[in-house]
């Protein structure tokens, strides 16, 4: 029988466009220091460390090893992951499996990225297969644009509905002291008039590029109960992959095979019959406005084609039936190696009742997702029980 595992503490940097005051190593230290303080632990209390990062954004191989002083890794078991946008959730799941296996009692999971060191769209363009895709690729923006066009065609969502997603995200972000983009006065019109990057994606439809790091302390059941009065228990985790090439999934975004599969798996494992009713909050890896609406459909928050209606009705706003991304989401902060773990950390804060101004009342069950690579999905369910 596997051990129960919980998240007991989190730490984040203030995510921002350019952290010109610290190097990568120092950036990591900030997040780890905050997580350890949150758990009231010393680095010596940590049994092992799991790290996630997307090396090509820094032009680095083993940046975590160069940075070892920054996360106290000397003498510790450590494993490093690199899976694209999902890396933060991949890394969280690794920590989860180790604890569930009873191999460790208290571990750190860390996600970090300093987008300002390199060129994000250039590095993402090399995601493309060198023979089949790279010449046409235009970073994440180009990919999401072609995907969004399919989704618009299938669902009939409008640029105005997309803009509402952007407004929701950046206004929610004003309650999150760690968010990169905090725009209290953002309007639908402003989003719809922002610079066109790749039709139909405008600048304010897209996530920013951020420098930032996140760390979490995870613990086995006995430790977790000592370390936190209300730990965020990990009830279920799942990953689902796509096929190899960008054009393999039949209707990218509109139908996300990986997201349907991963979410259905965790819902089943956690006893969630109706996600819109049974979840109290969701922190999803939405990347772009159109993607968020598509994900509502793929995550089962609404029927197919109803993603736009959901945003119109305010179902996913802070006051709605199922608040999505109280943190402001990826649209408000995107240090890629950290981004998916930020979703988990934010979901954990909600479950622990420690989300401050962005706290949703009475959260017992939360969904966190990661999305990346070639349209693959990670999903986790956190619970107060």
């Amino acid at each position: 029988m596997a051990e129960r595992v919980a998240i007991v503490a989190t730490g984040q940097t203030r995510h921002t466009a350019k952290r010109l005051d610290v190097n990568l190593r120092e950036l990591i230290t900030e997040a780890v220091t905050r997580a350890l303080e949150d758990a009231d632990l010393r680095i010596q209390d940590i049994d092992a460390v799991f790290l996630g990062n997307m090396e090509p954004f820094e032009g680095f191989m083993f940046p975590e090893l160069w940075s070892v002083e920054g996360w106290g890794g000397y003498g510790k078991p450590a494993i490093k992951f690199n899976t694209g946008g999902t890396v933060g959730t991949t890394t969280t799941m690794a920590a989860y499996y180790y604890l569930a296996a009873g191999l460790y009692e208290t571990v750190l999971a860390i996600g970090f990225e300093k987008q300002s060191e390199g060129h994000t769209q250039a590095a993402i363009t090399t995601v493309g297969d060198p023979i089949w895709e790279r010449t046409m690729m235009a970073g994440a923006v180009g990919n999401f644009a072609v995907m969004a066009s399919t989704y618009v065609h299938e669902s009939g969502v409008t640029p105005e509905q997309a803009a509402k997603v952007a407004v929701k995200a950046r206004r929610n972000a004003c309650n999150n002291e760690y968010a990169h983009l905090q725009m209290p006065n953002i309007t639908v019109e402003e989003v719809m008039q922002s610079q066109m990057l790749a039709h139909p994606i405008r600048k304010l439809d897209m996530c920013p590029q951020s420098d930032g790091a996140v760390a979490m302390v995870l613990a086995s059941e006995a430790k977790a109960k000592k370390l936190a009065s209300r730990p965020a228990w990990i009830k279920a985790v799942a990953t689902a992959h796509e096929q190899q090439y960008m054009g393999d999934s039949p209707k990218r975004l509109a139908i996300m095979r990986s997201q349907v599969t991963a979410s259905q798996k965790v819902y089943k494992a956690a006893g969630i019959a109706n996600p819109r009713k049974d979840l109290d909050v969701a922190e999803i890896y939405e990347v772009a406005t159109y993607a968020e609406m598509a994900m509502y459909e793929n995550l089962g928050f609404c029927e197919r084609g109803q993603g736009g209606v959901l945003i119109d009705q305010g179902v996913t706003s802070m006051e709605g039936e199922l608040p999505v991304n109280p943190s402001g989401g990826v649209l408000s902060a995107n240090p890629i190696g950290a981004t998916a773990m930020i979703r988990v950390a934010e979901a954990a804060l909600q479950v622990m009742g420690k989300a401050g101004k962005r706290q949703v009342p009475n959260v017992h069950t939360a969904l966190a997702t990661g999305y990346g690579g070639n349209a693959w999905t990670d999903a986790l369910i956190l619970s107060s029980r």
Partner: protein
Amino acid sequence: MMGRVVIVGAVQTRYEPRKAHQAINELVYEVVAGLLKQTGVRMQEIDSMVTASQDAWDGKTISSMSVNEVVGAYLKSEAKVAADGIQALIYGAARILAGAFDYTLIVAHCKESEGQPDEITKVMFDPFCERPLGLNDAVAAGLQARRYISVAGIDSRALALVSQKNHRSAKRNPLAQRSGDYSLDEILAAPSFADPLTELMAGPRSDGACALLLASAEKAAAFGDRAVCIAGMGNSTDSYWTDRDLSEAEALRQAAQRAYTKAGISPDQVDVAEISARYAHEELLYGEALGLWKREELSALLAEKNPLRKRTKVNPSGGPITGNPTTVAGLARVAEGYLQLAQLAGDRQVPGAQVAVAHGASGVCGQSQSVVILRRGNA
């Protein structure tokens, strides 16, 4: 004592200087298909995969995208470790110990022929004070080799002995890229790699892949003697290379200690040690950290006809010095250890081997170290 995970199969490609006709997905499919054939397990039974590859070596951001489909991960759970494949194996074992999966497929790949190693490995180094100098993995290896032989009180002849032994062993390994009966003088007189290392004291550029299948204890019974128990695992992280004594491998000492303790095995019980030594000095340094010999014994051991042969047979495969790409090397060590204990090692079989230790390393001068201890049988 840890819970039980077994290895039920291991397949490697032949290691070659350039696999010109194989794209990465075809290379990886070769070992995955081979593994399914070897084990008789169908892909439909496997829900978990951990792969290892590196973006810089593959010349591709999110390098695992090339292989997800061919490792059978469609709508399943795969994770990519950005380090040596032995780390993927250690994580894969944790997934099974957690009770989450019955099987986990472990795959590592690298085609060193596609890029330029001296340029690629530059990006492992400090961007402020080291990259402007052009430092790379080969330079660091040369610096560590000279440091090590100086502190250990041996000379480059000792490195030649290691090379000679491994290339001779590799003659029995049909997968090895380079093998032969080299004289010590030939090895010493080979073109320089990064002095004191010559090209015959450093692993050649290599293409290849390796796949293993892990299974839970419940599944193990069906595999009989082909199930080999992972008795212990350990890993550890050292300081950055300029912040430690390069003649020591402290992280490996810690990793080995953890693995031996979990396995309840002492170093003198090890029959076969497969050490990730791409460079000749690493075999001496790492064998010491694995507790297989003491530094004081080195000179005496090397003076004997079979260098380093006490009880333990070291790198009967020939090891990475005879050709294993980075990222694959450590996982290939586990594969070799498995083949030995499952009595599948063919001409390189060490008779009666019961306990094997496999080692892998990542980073500049082995900053990250991992050890896996295998025991014959699935009990």
